[in-house]
């Protein structure tokens, strides 16, 4: 019997290795795997590359991982100037790659979809494109972008069943469905464990085939 449910956050995070690229779902505080991010502090992996929409507010688990020196690089669509990430970056202690938000989402999606590169007009006319390969397609200057895969993806979802099928509430989806597909070790914290079959097959947002482990974290 397939059963991807595990009993604890620690078990869910076991085996994450130093040097991993860890994707963190969520936008603002919505769809953000708070318990898994906290657990990552305890889990101990270092030399991490974090992929997440934004740089992490002070007091957040991301900021604490940064302060603890556990993060080598952040890949995000923006950093708040008054954040730990920005301070460490300015001090030369953190590598930062800022990617336009839609390109960030598309690079994650490409990694999950086996697309090995794509062209986008986004940022092609800007300093983001400096020293990089561009190409005119249909009269538009386009920038070549590469997929962004993770080793691990940490998600938050609403419901989950033992096959790993997930649903999200409202804006909770954001990066979670595409990160689920972009890493071989996808771990979801869910608000509710439900029986297999409780989620209507037509309403599954992330098919369980993309998920390796689920842990129950009630509200």
């Amino acid at each position, binding site marked *: 019997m397939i059963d991807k449910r595990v009993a604890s956050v620690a078990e869910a995070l076991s085996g994450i290795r130093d040097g991993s690229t860890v994707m963190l779902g969520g*936008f*603002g*505080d*919505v*769809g953000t795997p708070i318990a898994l991010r906290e657990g990552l502090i305890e889990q101990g992996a270092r030399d991490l590359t974090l992929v997440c*929409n934004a740089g992490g507010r002070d007091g957040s688990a991301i900021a604490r991982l940064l302060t603890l020196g556990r993060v080598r690089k952040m890949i995000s*669509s*923006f*950093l*708040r*100037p008054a954040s730990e990430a*920005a301070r460490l*970056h*300015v001090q030369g202690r953190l590598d*930062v790659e*800022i*990617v*336009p*938000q*839609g*390109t960030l*989402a*598309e690079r*994650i*999606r490409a990694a999950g979809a086996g697309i090995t590169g794509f062209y*986008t*007009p*986004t*940022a*092609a*006319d*800007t*300093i*983001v494109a400096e020293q990089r390969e561009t190409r005119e397609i249909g009269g538009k200057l386009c920038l070549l972008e590469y997929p962004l895969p993770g080793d691990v993806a940490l998600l938050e979802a609403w419901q989950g069943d033992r096959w790993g099928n997930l649903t*999200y*509430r*409202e*804006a*909770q*989806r*954001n*990066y*979670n*469905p*595409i990160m689920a597909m972009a890493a071989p070790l996808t771990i979801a914290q869910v608000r509710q464990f439900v029986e297999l079959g409780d989620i209507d097959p037509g309403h599954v*947002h992330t098919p369980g085939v993309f998920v390796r482990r689920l842990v129950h974290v009630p509200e």
Partner: protein
Amino acid sequence: MGERQPLDRDGMAARAAADIPEGWLVNLGIGIPTAVANFIPAEREVIFHAENGVIGIGPAPPPDRVNPYLINAGVQHVTLRTGGSFVHQADSFAIARGGHLDLCILGAFEVSEAGDIANWARSPDEPVKQIGGGMDLAVGAKRVWAIMEHITKGGAPRLVRQCSYPLTAKAVVRRVYTNLAVLDVTPRGFVVREIVEGVSFEDLQARTEAMLLRD
């Protein structure tokens, strides 16, 4: 009526809102653009999109009716209109990049007479970059409008021949709403469509680096 000019932030938002017809799919940038939604009458069905995958954003909820799972791209609590829906981040930017937005309204530091927009950094050397989703929205929407003060607090013009700040996108802005005027970006440059009462064309030109054309 001197007391009505220049427009305040709400005045600029209301002026832009008046030009949005029913049925459009619209993304509003943070800052003044977000306020545009407050000036669309409830019976005019305009569909607001947010980068985090919300389609059909309604007004802010009363404090006691907040849904913690429902925010916009500015991380503010919002409501969903009847008929709204949700997509994931890649589909949300497929909407933006794929030409599905009838309109995107962005704040700006500068707009050039060619429609270039600079709205994310004041220097290419800023150590901490805050790009966000503006570049995707600017290249992808069917039309881009900018809302901004006509001049900076220091008195420098923002409607310029060439942007001096790092670009968000080239040749995308179609219309600019400022506290003094409404201007269209045309192949010939900025055409003034409207000036607030009490300001003359010459006054406006004096506060604008680019050459202005009469309607």
